[in-house]
């Protein structure tokens, strides 16, 4: 596209030390069906470009949705002017960019069936059937099917000579059954998070059967007993629960911008400071976390990030020790790294990219172990599936999590369903209490599609994953 060269030539001639342009078209189709009523059916297309200029140790970023030579040149000029203003403040605190080579590349999320091309009627018919299935159960008061289909088409160019053509997409189905019984109300959710795949995933899921299951489990849950006062128990956490726990307690603390204090005013900072690299025991020896922006079907697998840095795979925690952060070109240099891990991502064309969590997952156990064997080996504990309430302090130390479905474990057996269970723990106690992880046969991904961060706030996506894992001696109990 001619605007790529026009913008980069203009930025160079105006004295930019580095500049890039990201022309981005984002298409979101959102369908929200509640009790057979389509509450929200919308297709949104946001198309525009953002231009970043780096000059004298400072950024300027300007955006526009007007596609003309004059508008592109005016936007470049605005970005240059803003960078110059920023530089007046950064005189004694100049940012630097980690070295990077140029790339000319194309990346497309592999899909078999384009989700946006599937007729609306076909989608809605499936959703209605799922809704009807849930509502056929007496006691189910509300049935929801929330479907998000997202596609980003980006053209990226930089003054390094990089030219990228990137198409990323994901689909995220969520179904919720809410039961009311004797003055209480409880929901059960089918939620695997989003996945970077096409409509073929939906066809493989057997959502009618999932609807039956969650409706039945909502009714079990609303009639279940609560747990009673807080006490120390073992926890066995399913991948679709553990995904959010690792997101909050490992993903965010190892974003380098937080470590540097760049999020101090809003999202917070991190306890995992640079002097802890390579020596801090974050977890037990079986705890290995990978950052992996090459993960197939991963929501942060984009080919390249918005710095033009390719996707990579690296240890964030190795054998329980804090190993490395997720970084960007401007954060890496602040701790003396001469390379970025490619974690700079923006949500829409009008967002300046920021340091985000990569695809981040817990490696499976290396010895054969099934979930049934893990439960059988646990005398006293709680098995938690799905995500519930989640809250963590702004240094990412103290946290409290709920879940979506709970079973008490007694003498190696699932003894009774529970509701309103929460657990409290902190870093590094929690990950050091991990004493067993099921093997790779039971590893499952869990996609997060709404990771909020930044000022102005942006929503990013990434995939987590794990096999079921056990944590010993955690404070578990009923709420209030």
């Amino acid at each position, binding site marked *: 596209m001619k605007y790529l060269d026009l913008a980069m030539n203009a930025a160079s001639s105006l004295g930019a030390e580095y500049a890039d342009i990201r022309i981005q078209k984002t298409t979101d189709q959102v369908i929200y069906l509640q009790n*057979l009523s389509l*509450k929200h*059916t*919308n*297709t*949104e*297309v*946001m*198309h525009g470009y*953002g231009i970043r200029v780096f000059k004298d140790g400072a*950024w300027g*970023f*300007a*955006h*526009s*949705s*007007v596609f003309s030579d004059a508008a592109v040149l005016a936007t470049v000029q*605005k970005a240059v002017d*803003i960078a110059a203003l*920023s530089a007046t*403040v950064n005189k004694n*605190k100049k*940012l630097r960019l980690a070295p990077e080579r140029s790339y000319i590349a194309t990346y497309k999320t592999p899909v078999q069936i384009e989700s946006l091309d599937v007729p*609306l009627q076909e989608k*809605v018919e499936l959703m*209605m059937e799922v809704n009807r299935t849930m509502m056929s159960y007496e006691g189910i*008061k509300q049935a929801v099917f929330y479907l998000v289909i997202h596609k980003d088409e980006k053209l990226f160019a930089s003054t390094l000579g990089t030219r990228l053509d990137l198409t990323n997409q994901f689909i995220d189905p969520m179904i919720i059954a*809410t039961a*009311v019984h004797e*003055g209480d*109300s409880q929901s059960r959710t089918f939620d695997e998070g989003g996945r970077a795949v096409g409509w073929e995933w939906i066809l493989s899921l057997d959502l009618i059967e999932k609807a039956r299951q969650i409706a039945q489990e909502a009714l079990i849950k609303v009639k279940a007993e609560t747990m009673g006062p807080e006490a120390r128990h073992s926890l066995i956490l399913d991948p679709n629960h553990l995904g959010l726990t690792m997101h909050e307690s490992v993903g965010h603390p190892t974003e380098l*911008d937080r470590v*540097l*204090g760049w*999020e*101090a*005013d*809003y999202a917070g900072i991190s306890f995992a400071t640079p002097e802890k690299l390579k020596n801090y025991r974050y977890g037990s020896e079986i705890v290995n976390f990978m950052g992996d922006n090459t993960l197939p079907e991963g929501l942060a697998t984009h080919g390249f990030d918005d710095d033009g840095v390719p996707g990579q795979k690296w240890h964030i925690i190795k054998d329980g020790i804090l190993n490395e952060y997720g970084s960007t070109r*401007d954060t890496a240099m602040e701790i003396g790294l001469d390379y970025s891990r490619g974690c700079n991502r923006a949500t829409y064309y*009008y967002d*300046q990219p*920021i340091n985000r969590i990569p695809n981040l997952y817990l490696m499976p156990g290396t010895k054969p172990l099934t979930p049934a064997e893990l439960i059988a080996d646990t005398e006293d504990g709680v098995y938690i599936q799905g995500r519930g*309430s989640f*809250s*963590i*302090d*702004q*240094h990412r*130390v*103290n946290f*409290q999590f*709920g879940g979506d479905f709970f079973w008490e474990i007694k003498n190696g057996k699932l003894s009774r369903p529970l509701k*309103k269970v*929460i657990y*409290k723990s*902190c870093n590094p106690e929690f990950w050091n209490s991990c004493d067993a992880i099921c093997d790779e046969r039971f590893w499952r991904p869990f996609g997060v599609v709404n990771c909020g961060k930044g*000022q*102005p706030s942006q929503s990013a996506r990434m995939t987590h994953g794990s096999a079921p894992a056990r944590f010993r001696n955690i404070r578990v109990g009923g*709420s*209030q």
Partner: protein
Amino acid sequence: MNIEKIAQYIKQNATADDYSLNISNWDSHQTRFAQNGITQHIAGEKLDITLSVSFGTKTGSCTINQDDEASLAFLLKTAEDMARLAPEDPEFMPSATAAVLPKVDNCDQETRELPAKQMVEIVQTAIDKAKAIDATVSGMTERHYGESYMLTKNGFVGSNCSTNFAHSMTLKKGSVETKVDYDAKRFAPFSLENDFARLAAQAAALEGMQVFEPQKIAVILRPGALQELMWFMGWMMNRRQSDDGFTPFTDQLGKPFFGPKFSWYSTLLRPELNSTPYNHEGIASVEIPWVEKGVLKTMPTNRYWAKKVGSTPSSTYNVYIPGGESSEEEMMQMVPRGLIINRFWYIRTVDAKAGELTGMTRDGVLYFEDGKIKHAVNNLRFNEIPHDVTRRILALGANELASSHASIPTMLIDGFNFVDKTSF
């Protein structure tokens, strides 16, 4: 953006039985700084055009951000195609009809024209002041100017414009972290001198932190902390969710469900508050008592549910919680001991039916005893039920602008339930 052109195109070309057109355009400048340097600096305009259409009771909608004719044709075709394919909606509501809208004054020319250079000078001054006390400062300076329009086939026409200036600062000095922020529709009342002095005073008070165990204890909640709690409680007050039995407010309408010292309004009468003339459904803003002297008077209700239950549709457009006359010093005299909370963080629902929330304190917790501040303490986790908290209000302070949409007083609350602590 040419509103007339967009509206004309839709009027001339729409084949749908009904439609509703919403347009907004925001011109923003945002300077983000951290650890005494600028890390992000963003400027630009954002246009949103949303068209919702219906054929009979079948609905569809589309949103775009460009207003050329080809884009408008795409907008119309996409929305109408979706509606044609959609099933009948048993909860369909036709678009809003003509309404008399209140006059609001949300727009300030000085704020709209605030130069980028002046915003950067504010950042520079804040950094200089932080350096002068061997501290670092992080935050954001931003100004926004927005215009919005809504029209429907059934005759509703509305427009609004608003400005906003905000400046936040988080100061870090040693292990002390604390924050102040300004968020209002006008720039003129902003004083960096005053805000930084408050920030520095807060930081000084927080030095010498001592370990404090979680417990039930009286708290003085400052407006920045209360705003977060109230937002979550307001979200749970939805009428339909309550009627369906999902929230603690089921069957509580008209009853004294809150504490008698607690009232909550959305109001057009407070000039400092931003107040939109209509909501996204085309409902004109009016004076709304949500809670009056502890009695639940009104619950947010959309047009469909209001029609079904014979109520009036309503939505929260701003928050005004009337305060009292107690100062923090007087509040500290009213209880033997307690904590002063600057702000809460990461509040989430623990039990929707009970209305129970969890969250952390942030940006400074002070312990007081015998009417005097003794020392700072570590941050704490709470599990609490906000409507129950209002039953434990012991005293109310003067109102403060917590944000451009919320005027909230400081409150003295008895027996606030802290359940865990941090190491910092």
